[in-house]
């Protein structure tokens, strides 16, 4: 059977080529950056040559010991997990109310949740850090978690609100008409329907928390540094200027951690649960 023009090929307009050229440049840059760091992290010495002279894995061991990465990764994972769990627990009910109710002052509340997302982290990070210190929380894990909640909770709220809005409220009404109490409506009906949205929001919060530098940096210290902050300190510490390869090795560890967390998180997105994605998305 002659499969003629099934899908027309992406038109070979000059503009299209332009886009592809740009994309290629971006890809080259991106891969170049990643590969350069990986190569560097395995290089024994790399001065002004194409490739390092000699390969070694010792930077990883050294980075691990020097910065007690075991502990740092533990802190990072722990902080991220705590932040994700708390933001979801706090954010989802709030998003629910914002999605479903109209009440006096709703716009003000929305604005309050929007501001931390819009503001540069430093703007509130510095006063926030100052407050943390004056409460004696400076450089504690508690402070790191609290500080990370500031952008994360609004983030969950802002992403979950439209998600909840698109779930037909009649489904909740139907559950009530079937005799379900508020708690049962939440646990038996809403929760399973919200799972994909919650997971998406949680993954994004996770990525943000692991990657969030500005805020964590202001309140963390030894024992509560997350991985990004530890790397940054390694790169800039006054005593220091650690070997470049050491930083590279840490960066690779960071990215690997991030990827592992993402993959682990994505594993929990059970594809069958996506069937429950309420609205049929017919493209017609």
């Amino acid at each position: 059977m002659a499969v003629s023009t099934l899908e027309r090929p992406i038109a070979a307009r000059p503009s299209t080529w332009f886009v592809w050229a740009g994309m290629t440049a971006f890809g080259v840059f991106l891969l170049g950056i990643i590969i350069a760091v990986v190569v560097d992290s395995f290089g024994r010495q790399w001065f002004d040559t194409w490739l390092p002279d000699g390969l070694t894995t010792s930077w990883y061991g050294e980075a691990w010991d020097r910065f007690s990465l075991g502990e740092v990764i533990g802190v990072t994972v722990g902080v991220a997990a705590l932040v994700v769990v708390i933001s979801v627990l706090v954010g989802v009910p709030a998003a629910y109310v914002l999605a479903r109710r109209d009440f006096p002052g709703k716009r003000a509340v929305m604005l309050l949740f929007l501001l931390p997302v819009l503001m540069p982290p430093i703007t509130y990070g510095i006063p926030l850090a100052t407050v943390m210190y004056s409460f004696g929380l400076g450089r504690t894990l508690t402070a790191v978690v609290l500080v990370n909640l500031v952008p994360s909770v609004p983030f969950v709220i802002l992403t979950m609100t439209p998600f909840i809005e698109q779930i037909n409220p009649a489904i909740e009404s139907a559950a009530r008409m079937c005799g379900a109490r508020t708690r049962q409506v939440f646990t038996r009906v809403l929760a399973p329907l919200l799972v994909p949205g919650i997971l998406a929001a949680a993954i994004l919060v996770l990525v943000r928390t692991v990657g969030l530098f500005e805020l964590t940096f202001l309140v963390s210290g030894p024992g509560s540094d997350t991985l990004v902050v530890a790397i940054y300190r390694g790169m800039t510490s006054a005593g220091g200027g650690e070997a470049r390869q050491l930083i590279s090795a840490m960066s690779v560890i960071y990215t690997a951690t991030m990827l592992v967390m993402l993959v682990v998180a994505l594993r929990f997105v059970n594809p069958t649960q996506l069937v429950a994605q309420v609205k049929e998305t017919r493209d017609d």
Partner: protein
Amino acid sequence: MSTFESLELRGVGRRFGGVDALADLDLTIKAGEFVALLGPSGCGKSTALNCLAGLLPLTHGEILLDGKRIDTLPPERRGFGMVFQSYALFPHLSVEKNVAFGLQMQGLPRAQIDARVRKAIELVKLDEHVKKLPGQLSGGQQQRVAIARAVVLEPSLVLMDEPLSNLDAKLRLDMRTEIRRLHQSLGLTTIYVTHDQEEALSLADRLVVLRNGRVQQIGTPDELYESPTSWYVADFMGYRNILPATVVSTSGDEAVVALPGTADGGVRLTGRAVGALSAGDSVRVAIRPDDFSVSSSAAEGLGAGAIPGAVSVVEYQGRELAVGVQTGDTMLHARTPTAPQVGGAVWLTAPVERVLVFPESLDAAVPAEVAA
């Protein structure tokens, strides 16, 4: 099955931000009745139903079940069943789990749940689909799951909110018959919301016509069909021709009216006056398309009672044809078994007892319109 003697709504109302979505609804429903709420979009039908179900708190009035107030109970404690417009099936649960949901909420033993679910699913003939998710069912099948989910609880009252509006024409007919059958065989008390008069007429024992949140008329299908109390209700009951006119004279319950704007300005019709009318009043004349006779010569038309016009549209409708007749500015709708020529002149006549003459104002019949 839990049951009751009567359900009484007293002055039930609901406002949204200063506007009445529903006002002063008084209605008593007896066990086993099938009541339809009818009205155009936005008239407050869903609001009424949601208030009854407890999904919307009332802002006025009270609801009594056998004399006990229930309007402060949350929906889950009223024991009513509901079928939603878009079905509102739980998309993550299979058909049988959807149906079992309410029974599980009541904490019944497993065996009993299974038995009742099986029975309900048989009732709506979905035995083959018990394991499917709602997304894998057709519209009509989803609709039936929704009904099974509501009736499996053997509720004292079933509420249905335009359950057929998402179905296509053929399926709608079938499901309509199905609902009527279920109602009759299970003896359920049902309140049914729709904007389709045909549906309401064919299903209900009693109809409630709403307009802007207020009741316009309550009555049996026959009463509404034959004796609407206002042109608004008439319009809704299939009187497709609603013509503004002026009363020329009245005698008994007959009124002679003059239609403006017709070709020679002086067409007069005689009809049955609904409500008190006197000469000079502005009125609306309501006539069904199938009550018009179409004739192609003035001689056949009965003198002053015939409306002259030109055929502008002819639609084939099986055994009969629908004809659009342009007369002055307005298009009149009529039905005829023989095809007239498009553009040809015709005369329309209707028997006096089938021509209804209503006062222009709707306020006489109903409370003042809400100034939104």
